């Protein structure tokens, strides 16, 4: 079982490597990979596709700035975030707004594993942790 998972993981990595063009995930290549998996009888297809999905989603999350906000956020702010993040990471980062009233006020930006916290909820949590 463990070795099956390992083989599936390795195969998914190969498929993922083929899906990246110029440092970004190519939609065409992804489609091609899915067709390949469907056409050829790949061993443990569910395991392979799950691992592939995980790798692609990690890669995609690195080029998206998920902006959680409480209250209104202007298009200019989103554009400023896009510009700042693209400059910081050296790749094109698209901003995507998502309202989250639990933040109370302010915003929280996710780019891949990095989280930029500028919300009241985050500050309260930091305060609670320090007490």
């Amino acid at each position, binding site marked *: 079982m463990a070795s099956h998972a390992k083989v599936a993981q390795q195969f998914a990595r190969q498929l993922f490597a083929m899906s990246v063009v110029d440092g970004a995930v190519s939609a065409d290549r992804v489609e091609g990979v899915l067709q390949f998996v469907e056409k050829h009888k790949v061993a443990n297809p569910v395991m392979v596709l799950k691992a592939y999905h*995980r*790798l692609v989603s*990690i890669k995609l999350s690195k080029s998206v700035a998920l902006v959680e906000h409480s209250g209104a956020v202007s298009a200019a702010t989103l554009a400023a975030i896009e510009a700042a993040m693209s400059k910081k990471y050296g790749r094109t980062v698209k901003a995507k707004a998502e309202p989250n009233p639990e933040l109370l006020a*302010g915003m929280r*930006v996710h780019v*891949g*594993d*990095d*989280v*930029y*916290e*500028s919300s009241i909820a*985050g500050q309260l949590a*930091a305060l609670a942790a320090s007490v």
Partner: protein
Amino acid sequence: MSTVLEQIEQQIAKLSSKAVKKNTGNIRTVADGVAKIDGLSDVMYNEMVQFPGGAIGIALNLEEDEVGCVILGDVSQLKEGDEVTTTGRLLSVPVGKALLGRTVDALGQPVDGKGPIDSKETYPVEKIAPGIIVRKSVSQPLFTGIMAIDSMIPIGRGQRELIIGDRGTGKTTITIDTIINQAKINKVGLASGDKNFRPVYSIYVAIGQKNSNVVRTISALEAAGALEFTVIVAAPAGDNPANQYLAPYSGAAIGEWFMENGMDALIVYDDLSKHAVAYRQISLILKRPSGREAYPGDVFYLHSRLLERAARLDGKGSLTALPIIETLAGDVSAYIPTNVISITDGQIFLETDLFNQGIRPAVSVGLSVSRVGSAAQIKATKQVGGKLKGELAQFRELAAFAQFGSDLDAKTKAQLDRGSRIVELFKQPAFAPLPIELQVAVLFAMQKGFFDPIDIKKIANASASLKNFFTTRKDPLLAEVRTKAALDKDLEAKLLAACEEWKSSYSA
């Protein structure tokens, strides 16, 4: 004026709205105190990571797309998908004199119910050992209070001396005796007001032991008045393997504080066999490749980097390490024993047979050695016990040979008689370390043949009588031996006269 205020307000607004960056990940799996985490792309090796609910972890496996962490603390509340954040810090423990007399866990948190520890400083748990330049050779003695050890296998400050033997052979007792002896010496030294006196503080690290054993050790130290000079770091058998793995490093960090601040410290690792087992468990769960006896490949480095932290530093203090290794059926050639033997500066081997014969401490003279300690031995001990090791080794050989025949020449018989007497003299009860000056007096009496006419069965009584005689009636002479630390003609004459006096009173 208003523009100035606006400027300040803008500055405040800028500062208060500054975003805090953190690197996060999510738990993929959590089992047996180890979590596999997705994300944490910025995490560093050995970095502390924060789990929800206050638990912390240490990143030990940095893989292509996941991070393996050992969790310190309660894992029962953690679940798949929980967010984990990096802290950018290495694990640190509180250090300083405030820890003396206290029992702490692997993270330096008190577990003795005596309230919080008022410690101002922290030291990282993992630290690179001092290099060559800053070290100084071992030249100051560290008295264990055990006659067999101080006379034949002397230990110096900054040395690493392994104590090895099967279960139930008195390994822990030797270390507790040593700690008690340091406390006794400290009390005498501090009371004397000698400015050059350097007390030795002790750290006892209990790894994978039963809680009852740890309590017994604490009680023994408390009863002997040694706890006030001792820090206990406890990671008992019920603790998770991560804590057991970390405890010796935490103890080393506590000891390093004393060393770095110009003081001398002694650290006991009880025991490193269980430490290796805890590390093996962690490594297997982290799916690291296993080698001999299923230990991971870096099990040598596990102990070498720990024991290398014991040193004597030039212009500063020292840290002496007494690691303990438990063998199975006396097999010193097993994997972990050979590793630690090769790292340390000598070993004290305890034999089950000797222990069962009533020879306690059951030190095997042939297999025990101190590679650097003789440079630290005081001259007085060398003068009275320099040939002891050879004589005793010869006796063991002859004794084995003599079993086959009864016709022995006079010389062999004399050697056997003398050997048996030395063995009897070296018998010492637990938790009763002897001051070095008293050891010198007893060995002097033995060397001058005062025990020769006494029946072997009565040697223990005679020895006790001699010790009693010296402590009650010849205290100034003992103090002279202690301060001079060498026997000149005058002192030898005084010791001889005292022994004669004892002999007449004893035979009478």
